[in-house]
């Protein structure tokens, strides 16, 4: 079936608007789109979106992570193998993380990473034919916010919830950060790490994030105020 931008799409639909734009200039096909001989076909069920000038993608529901390059993910170290750490990132196989790809690490000076540690890292290599590779430094050799996450609490959620809360227009984190202090790291692989001053506050952040999955922006704001008032009422 022929579809337009903003439509609900199913795999096997095609969009001629993209093909028409492609004649004029280069277009970027995001997740869920695939060019075949004659048309641009949809591969995932969801909503077809466009960002000007020429980027197209499909917003779809997904829980299983498929690695893709330059995304920040949260992984758990499962094995030390020679000069590599094997990190479980929730994909089809574990990712490799070299012990040299930490800030200030040398052959003599190994970073202190134990099996079971939670790591916030960036995807360096993510191809369907190769083992994914992670780094904990940026291209200047600085760690920035990457590295081992100490303490805190990790939980899983769907991939589109991560995309939703990281979207700049989503009011969730904006409303929560004014209510009580906490730290948060969201991995694009559907894992969230949170750390707050007390257990109560940590659980409250967790529930606020999970509760936001099927809510609209206004409902999210109301929910955050509710949670904050409940929390404040009991603490004081």
């Amino acid at each position, binding site marked *: 079936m022929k579809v337009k931008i903003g439509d*609900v799409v199913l795999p096997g639909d095609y969009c001629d608007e993209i093909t028409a734009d492609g004649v004029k200039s280069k277009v970027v096909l995001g997740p869920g789109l695939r060019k075949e001989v004659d048309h641009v076909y949809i591969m*995932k*069920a969801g909503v077809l979106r466009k960002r000007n000038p020429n980027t197209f993608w499909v917003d779809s529901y997904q829980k*299983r992570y498929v690695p893709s390059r330059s995304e920040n993910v949260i992984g758990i170290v499962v094995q030390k193998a020679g000069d590599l750490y094997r990190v479980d990132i929730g994909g089809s*196989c574990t990712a490799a993380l070299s012990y040299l790809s930490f800030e200030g690490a040398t052959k003599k000076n190994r970073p202190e990473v134990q099996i079971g540690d939670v790591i916030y890292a960036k995807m360096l290599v993510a191809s369907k034919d190769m083992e994914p590779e992670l780094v904990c430094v940026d291209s200047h050799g600085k760690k920035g916010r990457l590295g081992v996450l100490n303490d805190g609490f990790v939980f899983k959620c769907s991939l589109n919830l991560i995309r939703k809360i990281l979207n700049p227009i989503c009011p969730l984190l904006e409303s929560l950060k004014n209510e009580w202090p906490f730290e948060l790291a969201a991995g694009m692989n559907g894992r969230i790490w949170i750390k707050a001053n007390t257990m109560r506050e940590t659980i409250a952040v967790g529930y606020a994030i999970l509760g936001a999955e099927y809510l609209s922006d206004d409902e999210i704001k109301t929910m955050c105020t509710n949670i904050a008032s409940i929390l404040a009422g009991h603490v004081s």
Partner: protein
Amino acid sequence: MVAEDFKDFKLKPMKCELNYLSKSDGSAILAQGETVVLASVNGPLDIKITSQSMEKATLEVLFSAKGGKPNVSDRFKESVIRQTCETAILGCLYPRTGITVTIQELEDFGGLLTCAVNCTCLALLNSGLSMKHVVAAVGCALDDSGNLVLEPTYDQIQSAAATMHFVFDSRAKTLVTGFTTGIFSEGAYDEALERCRAASDLVFDFYREVVATYCKVIG
């Protein structure tokens, strides 16, 4: 021309819930009339090296009947569903991985296999795996006097001379899978094929409706 004549038909009412299971990557429960099937999809996952394929994802289908005891007819259903799904999934995007589909029969009042194929397709849509197209299965029965009954009930199937099931893709409505039992003429087969092809539109519309209900809030 044939499709024109059968515009005013109805399929059994379909009801569906996606993401029915919280732990699996994609799941769906589908009721077609009184037949109910639950399907769950997991993958792409790591599998053992002997069953890995360099070119594409390995698909594994498990069908568990209501009675619990596996038998030969379940194996047949598994292979029908596996081959249907293999055409629909873009397995080349996930080489050396495995995709597991588990189907649980809950109620069987006729048309179990068509319901299972449709339910699997919905579970695959929910899992976010890349697919070439969606598939829709439609069944019909040929009674003793030679009349075609679309989506037969359990009693109609028991008394039917032949049953025919067809699976179509969503791109050009070409036949993906066909399975038949009993004795029928070539003409009856062709008529059944055209009727089911026309009826598959309703199933595709239903898929779109289901996806539209949750699409508003995921962005």
